[in-house]
């Protein structure tokens, strides 16, 4: 009798999963549209601000994946689901992921996200992992809504109450996370500690590689800036020589500017336009 009562009170995870999946399937196309719209907003902003990144992906969570997540047991009470009201409790139905080349760009992208969306939550996964005394991939996760200034516009009005997850990480962090995710999912048994340790060690190595890439880029930029500054200073000297000098010096200044202009014919010298103007 007592067993029958227990059975009757036991939460039906399978039914919960099925019901969540059916409900979500109906609204998924809308979330997909939402993710695409948000991706366009962010991509346009980054492009306008000349932020160089690897890619932006948008996605709506797969129906099966949503059902599976909905049926996860609660960590505090495993006899009940973690998400009793999945459509409300699960916040990553729509998502976009920005993958950058360098760590500093992660910060830049985050600033533009904070500018373009209404931020509900921002989680620095690396800080979270460090607090727990663990290593792992670094990634910044946001939960956002449409910015109030945009939510009133006709094309975005239907998205105004929806929540979007945005992840920002470097390409190396992304590679690590994808590999780790792949192994986690394909593994039918618990991942052995030794493999876990090796993954953690690899995360540390990739963090060093990320920093080194950043340092190399900074150093390269420093050299370019120094060269550009030398060029600008030389142009200023020629200009002064042209203004102050005798005819032979003026003649030399013009020839030297032409020579410099020929030499520096390239897409990447930012001073090129100035040089053209000087001529």
């Amino acid at each position, binding site marked *: 009798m007592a067993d029958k009562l227990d059975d009757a009170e036991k939460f039906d995870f399978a039914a919960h999963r099925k019901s969540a999946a059916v409900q979500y399937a109906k609204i998924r196309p809308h979330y997909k549209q939402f993710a695409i719209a948000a991706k366009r907003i962010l991509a346009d902003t980054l492009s306008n601000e000349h932020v160089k990144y690897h890619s932006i992906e948008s996605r709506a969570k797969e129906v099966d994946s949503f059902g599976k997540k909905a049926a996860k047991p609660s960590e505090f009470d495993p006899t009940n689901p973690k998400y009793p009201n999945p459509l409300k409790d699960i916040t990553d139905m729509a998502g976009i992921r920005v993958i950058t080349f360098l760590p500093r760009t992660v910060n830049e992208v985050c600033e533009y996200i904070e500018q373009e969306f209404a931020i509900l939550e921002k989680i620095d996964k690396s800080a979270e992992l460090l607090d727990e005394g663990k290593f792992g991939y670094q990634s910044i996760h946001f939960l956002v809504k449409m910015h109030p200034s945009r939510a009133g516009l006709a094309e975005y009005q239907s998205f105004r109450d929806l929540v979007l997850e945005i992840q920002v990480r470097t390409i190396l962090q992304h590679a690590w996370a994808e590999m780790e995710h792949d192994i986690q999912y394909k593994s039918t048994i618990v991942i052995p500690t030794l493999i876990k340790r090796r993954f953690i060690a690899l995360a540390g190595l990739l963090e060093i590689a990320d920093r080194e890439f950043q340092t190399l880029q900074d150093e390269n930029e420093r050299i370019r800036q120094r060269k550009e500054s030398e060029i600008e200073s030389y142009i200023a*000297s020629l200009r*002064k020589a042209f203004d102050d*000098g005798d005819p032979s010096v003026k003649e030399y200044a013009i020839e*030297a500017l032409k*020579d410099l202009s*020929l030499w520096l*014919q390239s897409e*990447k*010298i930012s001073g090129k336009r100035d040089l053209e103007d000087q001529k």
Partner: protein
Amino acid sequence: MPLTEIDLESITDYLKRRFPDRIHGQPKHVSEIIDELSKENINNIEDIEDLVMRYPPNEYVSKLEHEIGIRLADVGVLRSLLVAKKIDEINDIIDGWRPLPIEPETLRDLNPFVNIGSGISAYLMKSGDDIKIYATNEGELDISFDELGNRIGTGLPYLRRLAGRLESFREVLSQEARA
């Protein structure tokens, strides 16, 4: 076989064929490089091809390109090869002076071959067994492509003035050696 005279059209075609993966200079820059080529007695396309064969671009422009992460346009490449050629011509003249007098050990020319103020003046000088440049803003420079080819402000106008001062400096050197 008739030679192809250099004009805007023939050199533009040549540059596009010879350097297909480089940025192509605008017509006004192509005109400027035609002037430069003419000053260096290069008057037909076959002469340009000889220049490119004698001074392989990979060897003569890659250092600058690697150093500041730029890729020269086709006209920029030709200009650098002309610099290499001019430096060789200057060194041929200097080689004709050898052996240089032992004394004086060092001697700076009386007049600069370039003087644009702002501390930018350059003189010829004898330093031991070499003829070098003394630049007030840089110190001693070898007359070599390694030293001058990728340096700001040591292009064709600079080298032409240097070449124009060689004979006078040789006289100064002879007088000092006799004294």
